[in-house]
């Protein structure tokens, strides 16, 4: 672009910003603390819950736009104005109004909360967040399924980031860990609570299932962690491409093993699980995984993984036990992948070895590298963005598989390490009140 044109363009852009008042709006959004966002979304969700249907009807929409109007817009372009108006009225308006008029008061409240001990206010925020999510998802079962699978994707992405981002090994075995977790957890719940043809009569009454489900998940996680030793031990002597090949082999071994085990249903898969992974369960496990993984990567061993990534020999010289670091990190990450697999199996109520193939692996990689290496926030953003985009673009069919890769290529060109890479996740900083301006 010629400089002259660029100047006019830039001036126009500046003017437009003034006209629409972007600066002003952005100004008061930046003064809003996390609590303010929660309040904004809370009011939005309450509005949608109470009069969402009426607003949708007034705007000529058949129903509440379920995923922020994307699906409606892509399926029926004629309804785009109505869907946009709905988003503005129901989501943007309450958010802006809260930001404009209540920022000060909410800031004071946030400051008061901030004086409490961190665990107390964090739990308060989480409960508030869950209430919002629950009301929002309660309006449509489709939202619940999408959210559940998104949360599971967050756990998977985080756990892969521990190996690929924090430790810098390129591991391709994640779907293998996930399969181990899914099959072990399913086997436990099927033996205990389901009458089926693989394992016979249920041993326990099914009302106990929700209470023992965490144990099944942990068993799945432990199985995955033990399985990960098969990749962790070779990783002492191999790095880079070679480890990638070993881990890929591990994934195929797991897949073939399950395909050939008639006890587990073989290639036909294993079905009949109770739908135990409901929204609160998945939410709690996701929060747990974020919390524990964040503690892990900021702990001494977490720093050791970074040292191993940057220079293994130097790390060894600095008295870091690199072998122990690798084993612990692999097992830790695999544990969470196993838990995610267990949850996945109980959302779908069916698993089959074909699900845990290269395609799933590519999906997890996309989420990790899109969101950003070595970053908790990045992984969360990557998982949520990929899942929402993939759901929202579904009506485009084949073009979806052109748009998503193009976005990925652009990210790799302009931000090679991902959107939010190498950032520390500090809950205190996120929840802090904003200074008065």
């Amino acid at each position: 672009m010629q400089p002259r044109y660029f100047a006019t363009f830039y001036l126009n852009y500046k003017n437009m910003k003034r006209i629409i008042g972007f600066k002003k709006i952005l100004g008061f959004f930046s003064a809003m603390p996390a609590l303010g966002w929660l309040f904004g979304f809370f009011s939005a969700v309450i509005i949608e819950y109470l009069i969402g249907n009426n607003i949708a009807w007034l705007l000529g929409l058949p129903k509440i736009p379920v995923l922020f109007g994307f699906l409606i817009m892509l399926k029926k372009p004629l309804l785009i104005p109505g869907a946009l108006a709905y988003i503005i009225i129901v989501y943007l308006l309450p958010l802006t109004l809260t930001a404009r008029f209540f920022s000060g008061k909410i800031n004071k409240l946030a400051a008061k909360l901030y004086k409490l001990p961190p665990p107390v206010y964090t739990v308060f925020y989480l409960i508030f967040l869950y209430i919002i999510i629950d009301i929002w998802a309660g309006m449509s079962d489709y939202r619940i399924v999408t959210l559940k699978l998104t949360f599971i994707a967050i756990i998977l992405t985080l756990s892969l980031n521990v190996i690929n981002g924090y430790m810098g090994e390129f591991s391709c075995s994640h779907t293998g860990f996930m399969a181990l977790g899914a099959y072990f957890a399913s086997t436990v719940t099927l033996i205990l609570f389901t009458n089926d043809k693989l394992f016979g009569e249920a041993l326990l009454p099914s009302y106990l299932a929700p209470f023992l489900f965490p144990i099944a998940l942990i068993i799945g996680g432990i199985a995955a962690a033990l399985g990960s030793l098969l990749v962790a031990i070779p990783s002492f002597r191999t790095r880079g491409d070679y480890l990638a090949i070993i881990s890929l082999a591990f994934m195929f071994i797991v897949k073939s093993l399950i395909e050939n085990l008639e006890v587990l249903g073989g290639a036909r898969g294993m079905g009949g699980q109770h739908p135990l992974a409901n929204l609160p369960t998945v939410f709690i496990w996701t929060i747990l995984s974020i919390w524990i993984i964040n503690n892990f990567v900021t702990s001494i061993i977490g720093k050791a993984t970074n040292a191993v990534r940057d220079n293994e020999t130097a790390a060894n010289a600095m008295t870091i036990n690199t072998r122990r670091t690798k084993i612990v990190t692999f097992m830790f990450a695999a544990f969470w992948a196993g838990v995610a697999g267990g949850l996945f199996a109980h959302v779908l109520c069916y698993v089959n070895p074909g699900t845990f193939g290269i395609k799933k692996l590519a999906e997890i990689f996309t989420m990790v590298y899109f969101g950003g290496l070595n970053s908790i926030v990045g992984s969360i953003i990557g998982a949520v963005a990929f899942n929402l985009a993939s759901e929202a673009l579904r009506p485009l069919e084949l073009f979806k598989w052109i748009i998503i890769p193009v976005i990925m290529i652009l990210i790799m060109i302009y931000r090679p390490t991902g959107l939010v890479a190498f950032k520390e996740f500090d809950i205190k900083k996120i929840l802090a009140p904003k200074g008065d301006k």
Partner: protein
Amino acid sequence: MKKLSLILTAIFFTLFALSSSGWCWGKKKIIKIGINAPITGDIPKVGENTKNTAKMWLEDIEKAGGIEIAGKKYPVELVIEDNEAQAESAVKVNTKMITEDEVITVIGPQSSKQAIPAGGVADSYATPMISPWSTNPDTTKDRPYVFRGCFLDPFQGPMLANFVKEEFGFTKAAVLYDVASDYPKGLAEYFKQAWEKNNGEGSVVSYESFTTKDADFSSQLTKIINSGAEVLFVPQYYNEVALIVKQARELGWKKPILGSDSWGSSETITLCGSDCYGAFFSTHYASAGAEGITKEFIDRYKKKYSYVPDDVCALTWDSLKLAQKAIEALVEFSGDIKKDRENVKKNLAEIANFEGVTGNMSFTPDGDPVKCAIIVKISDAGEFRFYKSVCP
């Protein structure tokens, strides 16, 4: 500069007003039917065929002015969604169609991998679902709301074994199948059981397997040829069929080759060419030499999309017709979706002697159809010729 914001607002409202045709105020009651198809992913051809067939069906309905229930015509809308040939996507899509779009019945998903979990969703929301192509017994087992359009593997395997015995009187068979894919594996097992029941233990002289995406079968085929088998059974999909049959001919296999309903795609001949001529396979319908409504269907489809419809098309067509019949048999279209779904399910279960392009069928209490299978011989012109019909 206030002008600009005014203009923007004006554009917005004009668009809003223009979009009135999309509004849903005062709209008539619509019958919505969901299509859960693998349009992208591993088997896009299946998805495309499903979609094309559904569109052809909708054309018919629109020509007739809608589906008639108790003397009144209601317009029909198809909700076509892509399940990417993945289980979790099929679950999401089914949930969306049932809870958001409020479809009265779901057609699809086609392959068992997606149909089993999606069937669970449909059953838990008490919505009738017909999977045209899924042959795994688990899809409909203990699920009163889930039906299927095709015969099952426990029928197809023994039927093929009996056919060979009656037709040729062979006693030694070889099987080559994909151990990692549920459909070939299940079928291979049923065939082996039935064959050994007919001809005694060890009469399946060679039972060889491979894994999905293998491309070289020479070691398995050499074993098979050396085993002295008289017939080779290959229950594989069209892309693998071409590779296996070609390699078998190159290694000198001259005896008959037997296939299953997964051979029925038009791609089989395109990929396999003259090596497949003379082979037999069982299927839902034969496109060459068809008569009556089957011929009518084939001709129409060929004219519209310029290729011969395969079994996916025919089964999807029949499933749609079954759904249509069940909806037409409603006493009234109440608009209360739960009640209507319940009644549609009841009507579906009661359908007897339905005349479809893949033959006559009735539903068992499990939601599986009782229908005849057809043995097809691939002619020297590469056509699927009707050879024999086998009924249960």
